[in-house]
């Protein structure tokens, strides 16, 4: 099974993809600061950032449909949080602030992660002398998040292959979901032990 939901387009060919990772990271950080710092009434920072992002997307050859879907996945969370602001006096402005700023920041990160492979981003952190423990954890996460998704998928298929009774589905499926989460936790713990053994076998000093 193949998964690339995190950075599907990070390895395609484009002028943007060829730029050094450190530069792209710097620009992304700058863009987020420009979006986060000024008040919403200062329209220009937002318009300019949005414009730049759109140009980058166009040049980077990431399909627009993909970007839209990616943003839409996260948008409900943003809208719910922003919706709480509507309950306060003068809420409309706050609502707009949160939605615009969050969406632009999110878009920046999605563009960055789809134009730069994660390992290159990690290398930038390494050159910036980020703590090694942090780097190791990020690298392991990047490696095993997909393995875990596979494992979950296999368990789901195994469960579906033995699910016959569709009537009592609801209550039972909650139970089996919680069982699956428990199983996944157990399997992950055991896998963590085996990975640690494999790391030790090649000289890892804990």
């Amino acid at each position, binding site marked *: 099974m193949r998964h690339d939901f995190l950075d599907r387009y990070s390895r395609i060919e484009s002028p943007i993809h060829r730029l050094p990772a450190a530069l792209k990271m710097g620009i992304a950080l700058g863009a987020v600061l420009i979006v986060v710092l000024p008040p919403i009434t200062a329209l220009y920072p937002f318009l300019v950032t949005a414009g730049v992002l759109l140009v980058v997307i166009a040049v980077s050859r990431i399909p627009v449909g993909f970007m839209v879907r990616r943003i839409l996945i996260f948008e409900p969370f943003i809208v719910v949080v922003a919706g709480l602001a509507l309950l306060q006096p003068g809420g409309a402005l706050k609502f707009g602030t949160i939605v615009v700023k969050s969406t632009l920041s999110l878009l920046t990160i999605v563009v960055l992660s789809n134009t730069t492979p994660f390992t290159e981003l990690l290398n930038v952190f390494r050159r910036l002398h980020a703590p090694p423990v942090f780097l190791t954890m990020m690298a392991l996460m*990047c*490696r095993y998040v997909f393995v875990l998704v596979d494992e979950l998928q296999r368990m789901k298929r195994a469960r579906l292959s033995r699910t016959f009774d569709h009537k009592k589905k609801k209550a039972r499926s909650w139970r089996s979901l919680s069982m699956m989460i428990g199983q996944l936790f157990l399997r992950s713990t055991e*896998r963590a032990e085996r990975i640690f053994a*494999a790391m030790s076998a*090649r*000289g*890892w*000093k804990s």
Partner: protein
Amino acid sequence: MTTAVEIRDLHFQYTDDHRALQGVSLTIAEGENVGLIGPNGAGKSTLLLHLNGILPEGFKGRPSIFIYGIPVVKSNGPRIRRDVGLLFQDPDDQIFCPTVYEDVAFGPLQFGVPEKDVKDLVRRELMEVGLPDFEKRSPHHLSSGEKQRVCLAGILACRPRILALDEPTRGLDPRGKRQLKTWLRSVPSTKIIATHDLELVAEMCERTVVMDEGRIVADGPTLKILSDEDLMLAHGLEKPHILKHSHPHGG
């Protein structure tokens, strides 16, 4: 003849009280290819994990294993782990880095090989296992056979004198198995192969050790052991087909 591995009366008990090894003694000479066979739960994997001190955790207890005469104790840890290359059962456990390059480079970097030499080393090892230009690939997008070979490259990059392989043919298609065998023949290290693949043992190993319930129950020339039908059946094994069809004098 130089002794590569010496095991003296090794006992081991898992924390759930399961007694996995109950007095194992074994001596392996340099350059030998030894097949380690036995039913599931016989203690084969547990034994391999002892060879470089992964078990017992934290090198507890009196040393029972000697690699080239050096006891497997904490102070010798780095040296032992460099000498003994261990191939784990599941490649997903063994390849823990986000790219193939980083994974093959992991061992050499841990053992202090300078970064500029590592690059060449990784390229050479990947070439060796038939995966040239795989450096930037992500392990998740490799086939089982490719993962297996990345694991082997990662071990080989540490230049081990002894290879301990746990189920090396598991999950490989016939072509993958053939490539693995060719590759194994070209590596001069001492090899200990724990497996259920008896044809692999028949082809690769001149000596076979049978384990059952944490003990060694037989040890001798592969041909003699594998064709002893009573012995094989008594320990959950069977005489492999390639021996059944060969002539008695042909081997």
